[in-house]
């Protein structure tokens, strides 16, 4: 039995966590311990409930039997009595409670549809130039946004879409303005919101039509529904949630001195990069100019030219020598020729004998009565052979 009850306890307590139930109060009792005990009932069912003393101060009203209330809490099982009950964290009289219930229902519905999914969120452009603002023209939100942006970065343009932010028809106006801003105005980012107020005042931002318009917006939306703590449905649907309109303005534009500093930093980095680059290149160049291999060709040219000079010198010498040799040979030949000059021989007493113009070198060539010319150095004598060789 204990086992079964334990199972029931586990399954009930994990299945019904932080639920909202609505019913009529009965058997309401405040125990001397300070805890509240009650039953909730509607036409078909009854549920026991307890609210521990620590939560009672947040109640804000005095419950009475017969009141219609909305209770927020989790189911717990009390094994010794085999009973279950709701452990109430909050209890609200129906008017307010209903609204809360509607809020939770809508939130769940839209969440289930994926309207709040993180991967749907658009990033906010870092340097918007035109910012659309959907809020009341006369409200504090607009004033706050303008003064923050004027201080941080006046280099942008603000485009106000004036709407009523509370009361009948406010949600429709807000939604229409969001849609309009997507059709007109070349807007980079949209701030949708209002300054703080009561839950009632902020209600337009919990309406489905506003959430859907925000989710459908192609322009990134920053929600700024002026309540630090509570989230509105619009906050969930927005691409970025700002706790207040001023905060939204700060999220939308970067401080211009920051941007200027960043630019200065970029310039500095750029300058050092370029300087480093040129210094490296110039030292590289220097190293190359003075390097051995770079100077090789010049040295080689010098060597060649020296070699050529050398060759020239040697060639000159060679030519000179050759000339000398030739000269000597010429002289020798001349002398030789001189020696052979027949005229010289004739002067020394030799003669040349010719027969019919041909030089006679042998006695056998001459016969009796042959005519022969004898040439002396000073003339020719014609003779006739008397007797030939025997």
């Amino acid at each position, binding site marked *: 039995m204990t086992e079964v009850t334990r199972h029931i306890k586990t399954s009930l307590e994990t299945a019904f966590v932080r639920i909202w139930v609505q019913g009529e109060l009965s058997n309401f009792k405040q125990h001397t311990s300070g805890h509240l005990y009650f039953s909730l009932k509607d036409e078909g069912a009854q549920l026991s409930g307890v609210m521990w003393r620590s939560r009672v101060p947040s109640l804000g009203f005095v419950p009475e039997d017969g009141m219609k209330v909305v209770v927020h809490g989790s189911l717990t099982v009390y094994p010794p009595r085999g009973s279950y009950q709701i452990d109430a964290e909050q209890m609200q009289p129906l008017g307010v409670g209903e609204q809360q219930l509607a809020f939770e229902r809508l939130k769940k519905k839209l969440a289930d549809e994926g309207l709040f999914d993180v991967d749907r969120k658009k990033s906010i*452009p*870092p*340097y918007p*130039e035109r910012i659309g603002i959907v809020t009341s*023209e*006369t409200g504090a939100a*607009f*004033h706050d946004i*303008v*003064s923050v*942006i*004027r201080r941080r*970065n*006046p*280099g*942008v*343009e*603000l*485009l*106000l*879409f*004036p709407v009523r932010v509370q009361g009948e028809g406010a949600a429709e106006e807000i939604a229409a303005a969001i849609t*309009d*801003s*997507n*059709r*007109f*105005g*070349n*807007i*980079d980012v949209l701030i949708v919101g209002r300054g703080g107020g009561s839950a009632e005042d902020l209600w337009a931002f919990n309406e489905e039509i506003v959430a859907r318009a925000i989710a459908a917006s*192609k*322009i990134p939306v920053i929600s700024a529904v002026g309540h630090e703590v509570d989230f509105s449905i619009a906050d969930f649907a927005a691409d970025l949630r700002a706790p207040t309109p001023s905060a939204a303005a700060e999220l939308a534009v970067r401080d*211009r001195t920051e*941007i*200027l500093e*960043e*630019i*200065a930093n*970029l*310039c500095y*980095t*750029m*300058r050092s*990069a*370029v300087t480093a*680059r*040129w210094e490296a*290149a110039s030292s590289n160049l220097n190293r190359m100019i003075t390097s051995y291999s770079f100077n090789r060709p010049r040295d080689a040219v010098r060597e060649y030219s020296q070699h050529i000079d050398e060759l020239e010198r040697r060639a000159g010498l060679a030519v000179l020598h050759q000339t000398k040799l030739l000269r000597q040979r010429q002289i020798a030949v001349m002398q030789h020729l001189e020696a052979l000059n027949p005229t010289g021989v004739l002067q020394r007493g030799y003669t040349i004998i010719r027969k019919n113009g041909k030089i006679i070198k042998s006695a056998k060539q001459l016969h009796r009565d042959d005519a022969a010319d004898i040439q002396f150095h000073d003339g020719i004598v014609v003779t006739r052979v008397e007797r030939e060789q025997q």
Partner: protein
Amino acid sequence: MTAKKNSKDSLEHSLERLEEIVGALEQGSVSLDESMNLYEEGIRISKECGERLKAAELRIKKLTKNIDGQFELSEDIEAS
């Protein structure tokens, strides 16, 4: 409608370009001539951005719909 984003003259585009230039120069992946050109471009961009940021006056306009459902853009208005 948001096509002007990243248009040549947007601040965002200019700063992106400047970062790109700085990146290229830091990497040293460009030629010396190119690095000089990039540097000059970078300085020009940073000056333009600086001037634009400093010179600006906040402009506020109001967009309303007239009875025909046409948009009407007001002249600059003063914030309340």
